[in-house]
């Protein structure tokens, strides 16, 4: 069942001098199984939008439906919604509070009222999903871990709720390159395991690498909502106007084109760029040998 947003608007601190519109009549359908990138520069309304998807914020105008539950109606089972739609905030390691990793990850499922046995199962599974060894980490204090490990524990603490949808708000902000790569790989695996992923990111390389659909936000509005490749191919110039960019490899390809290389234009990942450049080089060699 999809998540549907109809004309959703959100105003921060209405009726005060600090009133600010964060979302303006947003219409959006998120289907199960999608891998969506959500980009926009700081203050474009990405995080506000994300918090509408699991009922943390109620729209000041419009409707949000999750599985045909109207989140704006009184008496919606918010716990059920939050079980269904997991949200990992920016710097999620700042939410850690328990004295062991086990308890930390069990916190969410425990709130759902699971038995002790089921809890252990969930914790094991969640730790496995983020590639941490249960026997080593379960009894460790989350505060003794490295930054990357903390981030993974925090991610696991949301995964333990077994959400059908997972929203990640800048999951790799402030991590070292290796941890970044690991987290990104794990997110890819999560999607392959059947979870619908919505990735909020400033990193166009990650977005190009992983996502199938790209939503671009600017000043509280959705500007583009299309296949990731099409957005990068058709709107490169506009993206820059919105304080965004195109993937680094695409810039490389464009630079090579300027130098006279006959390359394809829709190159968005490192692998594609490698293949394309190799192809052109081989063709060039063939030309040389023919001459």
């Amino acid at each position, binding site marked *: 069942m999809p998540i549907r947003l109809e004309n959703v608007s959100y105003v921060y601190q209405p009726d005060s001098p600090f009133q600010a519109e964060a979302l303006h009549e947003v219409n959006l359908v998120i289907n199960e199984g999608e891998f969506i990138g959500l980009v926009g520069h700081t203050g474009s309304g990405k995080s506000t939008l994300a918090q509408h998807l699991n009922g*943390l914020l109620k729209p000041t105008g419009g409707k949000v439906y999750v599985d045909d539950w109207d989140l704006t109606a009184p008496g919606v089972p918010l716990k059920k919604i939050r079980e269904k739609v997991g949200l990992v*905030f920016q710097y999620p390691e*700042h939410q850690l509070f328990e004295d062991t990793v086990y308890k930390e990850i069990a*916190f969410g499922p425990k*709130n759902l009222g699971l038995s002790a046995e089921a809890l252990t199962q969930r914790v094991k599974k969640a730790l496995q999903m983020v590639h941490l060894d249960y026997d080593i980490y379960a009894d460790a204090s989350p505060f003794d871990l490295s930054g990357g490990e903390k981030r993974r524990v925090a991610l696991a603490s949301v995964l333990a709720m077994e959400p059908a949808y997972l929203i990640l708000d800048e999951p790799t902000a402030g991590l070292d390159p290796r941890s970044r790569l690991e987290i990104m790989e794990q997110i890819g695996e999560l999607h392959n395991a059947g979870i619908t992923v919505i990735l909020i990111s400033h990193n166009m390389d990650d977005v190009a690498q992983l996502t199938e659909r790209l939503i671009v936000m600017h000043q509280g509005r959705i500007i583009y909502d299309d296949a990731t490749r099409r957005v990068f191919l058709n709107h490169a110039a506009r993206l820059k106007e919105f304080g965004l960019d195109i993937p680094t490899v695409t810039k490389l390809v464009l630079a090579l084109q300027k130098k006279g290389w006959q390359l394809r234009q829709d190159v968005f990942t490192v692998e594609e760029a490698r293949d394309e450049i190799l192809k052109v080089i081989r063709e060039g060699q063939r030309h040389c040998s023919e001459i």
Partner: protein
Amino acid sequence: MLRDITIGQYIPGDSVVHKLDPRTKIISLVLYMVGLFVVNNFTGYLFVTLITAGIISLAHIPYKIILKGLKPLTVIILLTVGLHIFLTEGGPLLWEWGFLHIYENGLRQGLFMALRLIYLVVVTSLLTLTTTPIVLTDGLEKILKACFVPIAHELAMIMTIAIRFIPTLIEETEKIMKAQKARGADFESGGLIQRAKNLIPLLVPLFLSSFRRADELAMAMEARCYRGGENRTRVKQLVFGAQDFLAYLFIIVFVVVAIFTRLNTL
């Protein structure tokens, strides 16, 4: 819910009240309180009410915001009024029910106390609403120095930082609250003890981040060679202007008239 807290909030503007020197505002506030507590009859309160309304309209702060600041105090005000109405004796008996009595003096006292509390809060919040925290503590530091308080600068700095971090802490609290809610935490239901327990997932991260923040701030200040108040000079010097002298004149007249209304009835 947390956004309702308006303590220390500053509303930008360029009214006369905004432009006053912070020292003028602080000293005037103290004198205003003296006047407020001196008056004790209807004429006096009428006078104070008019003056207070005048000051508010001069500040160009929307009434809505001022009323919002009073909201958290409703319980205290009601409690004070209730206690005064029922416990003060004297004057003719107005109403009686079982052991509850209301005397005329009690009613009067209750009303006056409520007005005192409301005006006190309104005018004090007007000070923070029209003065940026930085300027406010600057003024406070000057006043403390003038009173020969030895660590005036440090005290003022502590206050600046405390006020500066109120919104940050509120924001942080909301963020962590949301993060835990996303994990199924429940802050709204359950008994008193259960609710207190439910706060642990909020308080532990909040304390941790506060310590981290304090640490970072101390480091950043050291990195910029902060070493307290000794030999410290300012880029922006506070200077009294014509409006400040007018304000002093105004507030002194206010106090004198307030005293006069009290003496007149005795």
